């Protein structure tokens, strides 16, 4: 499957109680892009992300990953391409040890045990959590849990990473480690977040959702400079948001050191 494109056309979705969550979303992400989806609580960020992985299916409109429309029939194939990291790592980590949890996805893909173990080891090394392999997930810190949850998705070798509030609940050090880790990936990354500093550090593009609609689509610099837009969508620009990207990166580096 070509994984060069994530696209929605007139995507709408309402929850069973009638609450409309998405109203005619049109967006298009290309290979290798790091895109942030921002917006106030209830803007539709998580609902939109769930459509990319086939966990929710379009009620009207369409979602496509490469050439494949996201439907019940293509869901299994889509989920091998699109890895989804949940907001609360406790929802994702349920096996008795970290290694077994990371192996959960590859085992469900029907891979042989030797390859599953190799993938689990490689994914844990990739996120810097190899030393946690034999630990029980409930004994990990918030940052460790998040890293292991990402490893659990990475072990399935997806082309596209979808992350829901990846920095929520992390202490500053763990948050910076996460940002560094996500920056090191070459996958297409779609991140729903309230953390606009993470957006500034990681993403080249920002999609602003408001009441289920795309309110703006631009670079972080453009979006953060639009005070009226931010106020309308209940957002606040991060400190030194309009600094040049290299300045922001340098400032971030200084903050880290």
């Amino acid at each position, binding site marked *: 499957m070509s994984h060069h494109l994530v696209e929605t056309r007139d995507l709408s979705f309402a929850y069973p109680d009638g609450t409309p969550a998405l109203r005619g979303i049109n967006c298009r992400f290309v290979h290798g892009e790091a895109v942030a989806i921002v917006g106030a609580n209830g803007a539709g960020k998580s609902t939109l992300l769930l459509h990319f992985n086939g966990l929710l299916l379009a009620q009207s409109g369409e979602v496509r990953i490469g050439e494949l429309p996201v439907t019940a029939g293509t869901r299994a194939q889509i989920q091998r391409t699109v890895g*989804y990291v*949940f907001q609360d790592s406790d929802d994702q980590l349920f096996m008795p040890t970290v290694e077994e949890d990371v192996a959960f996805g590859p085992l469900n893909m029907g891979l042989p045990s030797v390859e599953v173990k190799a993938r689990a080891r490689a994914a844990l090394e990739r996120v810097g959590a190899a030393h946690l392999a034999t630990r029980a997930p409930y004994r990990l810190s918030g940052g460790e849990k998040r890293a292991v949850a990402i490893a659990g998705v990475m072990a399935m070798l997806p082309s596209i990473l979808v992350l829901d509030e990846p920095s929520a609940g992390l202490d500053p050090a763990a948050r910076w480690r996460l940002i560094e880790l996500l920056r090191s990936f070459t996958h297409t990354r779609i991140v729903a977040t309230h953390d606009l500093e993470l957006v500034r550090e990681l993403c080249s593009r920002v999609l602003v959702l408001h009441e289920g609609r795309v309110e703006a689509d631009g670079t972080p610099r453009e979006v953060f400079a639009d005070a009226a837009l931010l106020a309308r969508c209940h957002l606040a620009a991060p400190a030194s948001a309009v600094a040049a990207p290299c300045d922001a990166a340098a400032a971030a580096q200084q903050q880290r050191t």
Partner: protein
Amino acid sequence: MSRIDAALRELRSLEALAARDTPLARVDPRAKVLVTMAFIVTVVSFDRYSIAALLPLALFPMALAALGDVPAAPLARKLLAAAPFALFVGIFNPLLDRAPMLVYGDLAIAAGWVSFASILLRFALTVGAALVLVAATGMHPLCAALGRLGVPQVFTVQLLFLFRYAFVLGAEASRMTVARELRSCGRGMALAAYGPLLGHLLLRAFERAQRIHLAMLARGFDGELRSLWAMRWQGRDTLFVLAWCAYFVLVRAIDMPLAAGRLLLGAA
């Protein structure tokens, strides 16, 4: 630390014991499950007034605890925690079954008291054996073994998740209790407060269950919980099962304490 936190820590400590390398941990989980099931069937097969005849069966949980290096104190605490259920089941026997059964001089003991004591002994034996099984095996291998022995996946997966998320829900319950206590100005928890607390907990459990299910589907879950580690049945596992089953048959067929008593009295 709240009582809920303490109980959860205690439960976790039991699971942590299973991670150690002990002679019992090396036995195939299926063999341990089969033997424990045979043990429980043997215990419940005795008549309702049996006490002495059951005593030789205590060897099984004690031997398992020794082989699995399971400490006695946490086991005893968990047995005590579950004891009210056994007390509730048997407490009416002395009231309903008053016919004298044992007479020691002027003291006549009613049959209801004997059956009550038998219930408590059976409870200690069966629950003790089950606790040792969990402590020496771990919930995940245990559920995997049950699945391999033919128990439907829907039950084994539910059991596993019940165990895993009891901790998460327990932590939520603990936080809710602490939040309530902080605003209670020293007043105890009224009965009326339990309703909303349990209601909130149920709703949170429901929401979390939905999120967990989504997280599992996102990683290709199709109803079968696969394991990274293959189980291998070896000769020693067969020997383990056969030896214990032979012992249970022997204890069931021969009233050992009675036979020993007769032997001693005859010798005297």
